[in-house]
């Protein structure tokens, strides 16, 4: 079993691991030479299934294993993220699967180069005992020689190798065709508003003694229609707040991707939803509504740091599915993170 890759896009990789880590501590990573999959299946809350093209993060990759050259690993995201963070200013970064004391590890090796005189920019700091002169001469020589300090940092991330059988029963959740699909507004906007709602709801709960009420009180109601409207609202005994976005985009369905082609689109729930509701969001009709946990939603919104386009698919009172397309140079949507958020039953 061999896995070796050089990382080309450390920043994306770091942000990816940080986003995923907010949902769960462990990721199932499926490596092959065609694509890399990250899957988070927490005990409760949102599942993430991410499929990334190789060039989204790696420059070169080599994966060899007895199981069709696919390697399945369980990776602690906090460690991976921390290791990657320190590589942000690296001149090069490589990752490989290896063993230490018979335990499998992912070894992240980064090379950083620092100009040797960066820390002695103020030679005045070199005062004190005479022995300091030696030190100064040494760094002076380095400067003349144009020498840079090259540092090699190796992080060892403990991992577990998963047998093909272990992951064979894991499947992406299946969902019915969505009632509404809509391009979300900038996530930072969405996040700050929904976080505020959650906070208000929690502040309200503090006065009430019932601990069981907590989860129901941080329940956000998210709704969208097929006329470019998105609504987030929260309701408690004391208040009812909602925010509405209008003029958002409802992408056209691609007949090639819908079962039944043109006919399928005509029968698609979203086509029916188009008949209902209005573009100013004041109508009560035509909304597909899901009820989700505000705190969990806040974790999901953490994916905003990747800066991709996000399409939300609403299955009325059933589930919310987010497709996060990573920005890339060639315009293809090869790398996509899928978030499965199930709705509380009303």
């Amino acid at each position, binding site marked *: 079993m061999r896995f070796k890759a050089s990382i080309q896009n450390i920043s994306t990789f770091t942000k990816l691991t940080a986003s995923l880590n907010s949902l769960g501590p*462990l990721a199932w990573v499926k490596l092959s030479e065609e694509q890399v999959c990250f899957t988070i299946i927490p005990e409760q809350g949102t599942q993430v299934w991410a499929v990334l093209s190789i060039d989204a993060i790696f420059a070169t990759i080599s994966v060899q294993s007895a199981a069709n050259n696919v390697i399945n690993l*369980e*990776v*602690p995201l906090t*460690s991976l993220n*921390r*290791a990657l963070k*320190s590589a942000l200013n690296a001149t090069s970064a490589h990752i490989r699967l290896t063993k*230490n*004391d018979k*335990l499998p*590890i992912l070894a992240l090796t980064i090379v950083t180069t*620092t100009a*040797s005189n*960066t*820390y*002695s920019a*103020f030679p005045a*700091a*070199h*005062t*004190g*005992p005479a022995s*300091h002169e*030696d*030190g100064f001469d*040494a*760094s002076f020589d*380095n400067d003349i020689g144009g*020498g840079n*300090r*090259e*540092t*090699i*940092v*190796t*992080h*060892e*991330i*403990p*991992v*577990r190798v998963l047998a093909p059988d272990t992951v064979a029963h894991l499947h992406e959740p299946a969902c019915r065709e969505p009632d509404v699909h809509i391009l979300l507004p900038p996530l930072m906007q969405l996040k700050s508003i929904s976080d505020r709602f959650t906070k208000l709801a929690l502040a309200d709960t503090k006065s009430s003694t019932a601990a069981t009420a907590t989860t129901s009180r941080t329940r956000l109601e998210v709704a969208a229609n097929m006329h470019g409207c998105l609504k987030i609202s929260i309701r408690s005994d004391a208040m009812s707040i909602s925010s509405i976005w209008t003029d958002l985009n409802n992408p056209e369905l691609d007949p090639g991707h819908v079962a039944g082609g043109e006919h399928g689109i005509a029968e698609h729930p979203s086509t029916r939803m188009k008949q209902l509701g209005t573009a100013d969001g004041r109508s009560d009709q035509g909304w597909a509504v899901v009820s989700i946990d505000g705190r969990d939603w806040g974790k999901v919104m953490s994916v905003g740091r990747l800066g991709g386009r996000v399409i939300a698919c609403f299955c009325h009172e059933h589930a919310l599915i987010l497709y996060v397309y990573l920005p890339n140079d060639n315009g293809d949507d090869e790398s996509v993170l899928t978030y499965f958020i199930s709705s509380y039953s009303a």
Partner: protein
Amino acid sequence: MVILNFTLTPVAASKVHDLLVCLGKFSDTVAIEARREKFTFTALNSSKSAYAAITLDGNQFFTHYECVPSHGGPDGRFTCSMYTKALLSVFKGRLYDPLGRDGAIDRCDVSVQERENETQCRFIVKMVCNQGVIKTYKLTYEAVDVMHALFDRSVAKNRWSMHSGAIREYIEYFGTKTEMLDIFAGEDGRCVFKSYTEKISNGKEILKHPLVTAVAVNTSDFEEFVVQTGMHIIINVKDFKAIVVHADTLKTSLKAFHSQPTRPLQFSYGSEGLICEFTLMTAGDYSAAPPTPAPQAMNSRQASRTPSTTTADRKDSRSFRPNMPPPVQPASRRDGSGRLRNPGSRQASSAGQAQPSRKESDSLFVPEDEDEDDAWAPVDHDREETLGWDASASHDAAAFPTFTDSGSGSRTNTADSNEVFEPTQRVSQIKGLW
């Protein structure tokens, strides 16, 4: 009655803040030792594995410094101990602020009030702030005897130094939850700083194991690097971080001195009348060190001076002896413990000389089963730590009071001929004695 008054500039006061922050990472209390010409803060951590001493020079560091200890003459000293937090609440951050913002001071006057005719003994700090505001703090202190860890730099053959700014960059790579730091002098011209945690568990728990981070640095990037190739020195990573972060506030070079793993390591740095010395306990895989004429002897206090024991070394070790913790030891007992450390190697090197003493002390040396013990003992760390308190050695003295007499004879003997007492008895032979 002690007289201790000194005045600090805002810059010096903020340096006091920085050093207190650093010492606070080692101990809750900081001890103060004031002498006529210098002022020292010391801290010893609870496990006594790390000792810090930060000395402020009376003339250089202070704008005014006066210390007249109540007794002891020129060597006299005033010692006390205080809570680090209490001092830190007085020496806050941002005492020095060129823009004169909140918290900035003009100067800081400190005096100690300790008079027999007054009920209150106080450590008084006056912060003279802008606009004529004077904040006076009166702190209580506890009279303590200040101890110093001794470190013999002449023995520390391995040394390196590097600018703190560079090391500061390296420590930032280390994982947050790691405990240990292995400093390894590689054979490829690199020095590796590796932070890790001792294995705690296996199975699913493995994934919770903190990151192991190794930072490899070209030895040419050091200002000085003289370390035996292949040597591992292991210290506490938190101690190291605390030291580096503090050294970086002074923008100075950090120097390290050490001899062997399991022997103390000292970090030293300083500037402008402030000298910091940290003496740390080390662990290490000394078996990984290249073989020396008497590899076992590495453990021995005597032999740790140099691998090949010479007469001069012996004398050296004797002069070092008063620093050892226990009451006066008979030289013979010391020899005994020296032998305990390295029976095999010494036997080989000085078998001839050892012969007479073996006869002489035949009936006196009781616990002579150390050959077997050593064969089974995995590593000798503990015994190294308890040198001089060796239970078997004290047993010796207690059970055979006359032994001290013959001890003087063997002392001269050893000093001159560089020989050590050899094992003389087997356990099977001595059972009757108990």
